[in-house]
């Protein structure tokens, strides 16, 4: 088994897996936050999972902002709705 494919089998890690998404959103309850942060002090694997999970969400946010409606599709939309004169 390679270093990057290490199975993440620790019981506590598995228990906390469902809290990570809310944690990166800053929406996890204070109690669970403390439990998770305490666990991460001694669990490098979970720290990496949390960091890369947060980065995953950030990258998708970042790229979504750069995706715009193609102008030809926009034009056809305004035409189909009969509001071309407001298409700017």
């Amino acid at each position: 088994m390679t270093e990057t494919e290490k199975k993440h089998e620790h019981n506590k890690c598995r228990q906390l897996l469902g809290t990570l998404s809310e944690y990166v959103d800053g929406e996890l309850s204070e109690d669970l936050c403390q439990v998770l942060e305490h666990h991460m002090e001694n669990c490098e694997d979970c720290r990496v999972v949390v960091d890369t999970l947060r980065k995953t969400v950030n990258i998708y946010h970042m790229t979504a902002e750069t995706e715009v409606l193609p102008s030809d599709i926009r034009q056809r939309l305004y035409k189909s709705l009969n509001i071309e004169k407001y298409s700017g």
Partner: protein
Amino acid sequence: MNDYEDKVRDEGFSLALLQEGDPEEFSRLVDAYSNKIYRLALKMLIQQQDAEDVLQETFLKAYRGLKKFDGRSKVSTWLFRIATNEALMVLRRKHPDFVSIDEPVDSEEGEQEPIQIVDWCCLPENEFLSEESREKLDIAVERLPESLRVVFLLRDINDLSTHETAEVLGLSETAVKTRLSRARLRLREELSTYYGDRVAVLREAQPHQTKATSNKNLEILILRSKGVKEND
């Protein structure tokens, strides 16, 4: 003015004008949400033509249905509900074995146990914005089961709140949170495979150095990509 009109006004629109069929007010609504609706449809359906059809159909239905808009949700939430239903209809037409998003998430779509434990957060920002990277991001989303994908798209790509996403999909907020968590963990896993390889490639560029020196060089690479000089 009733509560419903207040809600719509908070979003920047006049419900009275929209319900009268005022074309200018309606065009403002189209302008505000066409981008997000197209993005949602495209990432659900992949095909550009299908996404364009959903976009047009959503606003045609909205225009016809505004008189009956009950104002129990935001106009935007109502639009996303129409768009999501349209996109799901296309999916069901194309894939008759398609699983309904209302069905409980089965074990196959359960929690993704992390396997890839590699810290790739330190990669230079331009790594995340490359053409190849964008392709990987899209492919990872395409691979999500529909029931997870639609939740991820509404929450993380279109920036809806948990409450709004629950309203759009007719799910409980707990179900939205669970599905979002599962979607994100799966995406993290997929991206870790790709970005983990990129980290390895950058490290291998300095094969004769110790790990510590290699890490130092990676840091320098990151600083350079941010336009910071090494001696700063």
